[in-house]
Every structure is written in C-alpha cells, then in structure tokens.
C-alpha cells in the first residue's frame, strides 16, 4: 500500500514508513533517547530529500516527546525556569541552523552539511559513551557520579559569568552556559532533525549537575519546545516539513515506544549503554562512508 507524500514529492510504502517509525520508537522506548538521530538517516536511505528528512524528523519528535513532557509536568518534575533559559538559546540556535540550510540550499552542499553534522556528533557521542562505559566497567560503578564533582567542562561552566540560582534543581548555573548549551541543541535540531536528548541529558547530569529526578522531565520539556520551534521555523523558511510523513512515522513510533519501554525494563543498564553507543557509532560510520565513497554520479541535479 503506497501513499504519496506532498512535500517530499514521492510515493512511499505506508507499512515501510510505519515500520521505520516503529523501530525508532522502540529504541526511544528502551533508551529514553535516540529517536531522531536514527530517523533522519533512515528517511534519507528510502529516498526522502535530506532537507525534508531533517525538518520532518523534528516534527515527529514534537509528537514523540509530547506525552512524556506533559506527564512530567503533571508530576512536577520539570525545572521550568532552567528549561526556559535553555530555550532562549535553542530558539536562536534553531533559527541559525534553519537559515544555514536555507543558504546552502541555494549555494550547494546542504547534504554535505547534514552528513558532516551527523558524523561529528555521532562520532563524538558514541566514542564518549563507549569510553564512559569502559571506565565504569573497569573501575566499577559509581565513578560517574564521583567525577560529577568536576570534569573540565563543568569547571569551565562554573567560571562563566551571570551565575543564577535555580531553586527547583537546587543548583547554580551560568546564564551564558545555558545559552550556549541551548544554542548548540537548537542548531543540531535544525541541521540533524533531532531533539538533542543525547546531548542535553549528559550535559544536565555532568555539566549542570542537576538531580536525576528533574533531568528527565526538564529534558523532555527542552526537547519538546526546541522541536516545536524548529518545526515551525523549517515550515516558515524552507517549506520542508512533510505533515503526512511526520504523522505516519508518529503512528509507528508511539506503538514502538510502548514495546521498547517493556523490553527496556529487562535489559541491564550497563549493557544498555554499550548497545546505545554501538548504534550511535554504526550510524555515524555509515554517514562517514557516504561522505568518502565516490558518488554514483558526479552531477547533483537537485533531485534525490
């Protein structure tokens, strides 16, 4: 059964797209993060133009994170003050990223930009996660929370100006640090079609040293509103959001997520970080291969 996607301008198999959504939702359910960074490359693989893939990916995450964000809100597990400060940065970052795509669509290499963002971000994140779980395996659990006292980035963030109290989290944080963090997440959301959970969650734990009880809720809040803003900006500037595609993916991912949550309870947390790091690295390497392997055609005529 095929369905024509109005913005992607192509026909796709409905079950295939629901299945893709399901796979992505499943991983999201298991790991709590990692929906977006898998979705965009998969969409590009079935022939969706890269700009449509990233914009629609963000739109899908709006729906995927909505339920979690509202549940956290009703349980009072969100530091709204801190989240709002992050959002200032992500709005500016999202705007910058969307404009960058708009510019490169005209002068070329928009695919390259998206690919390179993936290779860098996934390579770094995957390597960091593998390293962290290796250290944990060698030195025993608990080292992560000890090093919580101050990695180099956390110490740098502590020295930045405009330190403010955030009573809900019980921490002090620099507004400059929050702006930069939010900005980076906003840019990545626009360029990669992700919510930025893989970056924001470790940053909240290790850099801002927020208590775990508010990290999950606040990251949901941040992811939801970042992708809301980015989806809107992509629709405004690049007209690359495919509503049909987003909703079909969402139908698959909500079901997949429920299955993932059930499976996730049975996996040991230690294994789970290694598996996630493995997936991240495989996708990163896959994107890198696309960059260095000679293309089939030496002319880019704008068609996908």
């Amino acid at each position, binding site marked *: 059964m095929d369905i*024509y996607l109005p913005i992607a301008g192509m*026909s796709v198999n409905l079950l295939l797209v629901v299945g893709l959504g399901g796979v992505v939702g499943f991983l999201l359910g298991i790991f709590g993060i990692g929906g977006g960074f898998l979705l965009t490359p998969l969409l590009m693989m079935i022939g969706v133009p890269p700009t449509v893939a990233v914009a629609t990916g963000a739109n*899908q995450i709006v729906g995927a994170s909505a*339920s979690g964000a509202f549940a956290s809100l009703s349980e009072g597990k969100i530091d709204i003050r801190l989240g709002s400060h992050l959002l200032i940065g992500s709005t500016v970052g999202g705007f910058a990223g969307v404009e960058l795509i708009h510019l490169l669509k005209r002068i070329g290499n928009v695919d390259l930009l998206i690919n390179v963002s993936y290779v860098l971000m996934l390579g770094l994140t995957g390597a960091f996660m593998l390293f962290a779980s290796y250290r944990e395996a060698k030195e025993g659990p608990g080292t992560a929370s000890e090093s919580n006292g101050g990695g180099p980035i956390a110490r740098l963030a502590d020295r930045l100006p405009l330190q403010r109290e955030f009573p809900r989290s019980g921490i002090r944080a620099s507004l400059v640090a929050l702006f930069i963090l939010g900005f980076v997440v906003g840019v990545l959301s626009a360029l990669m079609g992700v919510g930025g959970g893989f970056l924001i969650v470790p940053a909240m734990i290790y850099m801002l040293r927020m208590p775990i009880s508010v990290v999950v809720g606040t990251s949901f809040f941040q992811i939801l509103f970042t992708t809301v803003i980015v989806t809107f900006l992509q629709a405004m500037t690049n007209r690359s959001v495919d509503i049909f595609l987003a*909703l079909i993916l969402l139908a698959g991912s909500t079901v997949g997520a429920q299955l993932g949550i059930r499976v996730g309870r049975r996996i040991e947390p230690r294994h789970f970080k290694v598996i996630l790091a493995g997936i991240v690295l495989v996708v990163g390497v896959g994107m890198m291969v696309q960059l260095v392997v000679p293309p089939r055609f030496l002319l*880019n005529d704008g068609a996908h």
Partner: protein
Amino acid sequence: MHRMKALCVGIGFLSLLLVRGARAQILTARTPMEKIDITTRFHGQDVLVFGVAPRKSDLIVTLQSPPADLSAMEKGRVGIVWMDVEKVRIKQIPQVSLTVSSKPVDLLLDEGTREKLGIGYAGIARRVLFEGNGLLPREKITRQLIQKREADGMFMQRSGDVKIYDQKLFQTTFHLPDDVSPGQYIIRTYAVRNGAVVEQAESAISVEKAGVEAWVSNLALDHEVLYGLMAVFSALGMGILSGLVFRRIGA
C-alpha cells in the same frame, strides 16, 4: 445504456481515425487522458499513446515536461570528502524526457533536426553553461546528467517500443515515475520518412496535485505560518492522545 453509448462513441471515433488516416495519409495521435491527478494513491502513471500513422513511415513519440533552466552542481573530491564543487547551468532542459521510436532515432533523423525539434538528448551538451571553470568537459557532464536521470526514470530514449500494426495503426506506453513535478506535459508524435519529418502531431497532459495533496502543498507554500502551526499541533495532538490511550491500556 451508458455503456452502449460509450461503445458507439468509441467505434465512431476509431473509424473516424481509420478513415481519415487511410484517406489522407495523415498522422493522428491520441492519449486517453488529458489530466493526471497526483492524489494520495499516486505512485507513477502509465501513459498510453495510440493513433494512425502515414503508411510506410517510421515513428518517434516523445513525452516531455516543460523545459526550464537547471542549476546543478558538479561533485568533486576535497581532501577525502566528496562535495558539490562547481556550479553548472543547463539551459532549457525538461525534468522528464521520454522518447520511443520504431527505429533508433539517430538512424531516422540527423542530429541537427533532432536538436531543432527537441527530440531526445540531442543538443543538451550545447546548453551546458559553466559559471566557474568546470571540472568535467561538457560532454561528460551531459552524459552524467543523462545517466542519473535515466536511473531515476526521468529520461529514456529507446527504439522498438512503438508497435505499428498493419503499417498504420500504432501504440506505445510511457511510464511517468512517482516523483515527477506537476506541470503541462507535451506528447509529440513525428512520422518520419527518408530522414525527414513528414507529419507531426501534438497533445498535452496536465499533471496536477489534486485533493488533499493539492491542499497540503498549497498550504505549505502559500500559508507557511498556518502550515507550521498545523504541523506542530497535529503532532502534539497525536502524541498526547496516544499517550493517554497507552496509559489507559497500561492501567
């Protein structure tokens, strides 16, 4: 009753074609559809062309989208990474160019004639304009473009796909891929004898987005604020709703 009427009209139409074709030896080409709707179920479309050809002539049939200037990028290696390097413009080239003929086109018409009439790939190389220095020579760029479009199903040039019956009735079928752009597509039929076009016929098919597809595309292009809000709120609504449903199932 309706079916009888349709049958009569069909027979009448066909005999008219035959009589006209036999008497005046003129070329008549028809396609059963004037309009192709891109609906939610659209996944490409076969286009049938049939008609009557002058006796003992060969046929060339083309289906083309409206020509437009194309801005493309040449890819090159920078360090270890392949990227878009040089801008190339190709003047007045259709997105879709499908050509079928009863014999290979280069045996039927010389290149100059084909270029003048816009048949097949003739003369594309001459329309390649470099903005910078260019990496590949014109001919190579043209070949890359043709190979890429052929792989996408947008270009085709094939002989033998026109069936001619009794030396005068002919029939051929084109396939438009699913990712064609909307527009006015033109079907041209040429009857060729001794290296010259003796008759020529033309008809048009308009490819349009229809129904929900047209509505969504127009909204995205012309009312981007509304469309952006719709994208955000429909995803929000679906996310929250499914959350509630699963919570109920879970409980």
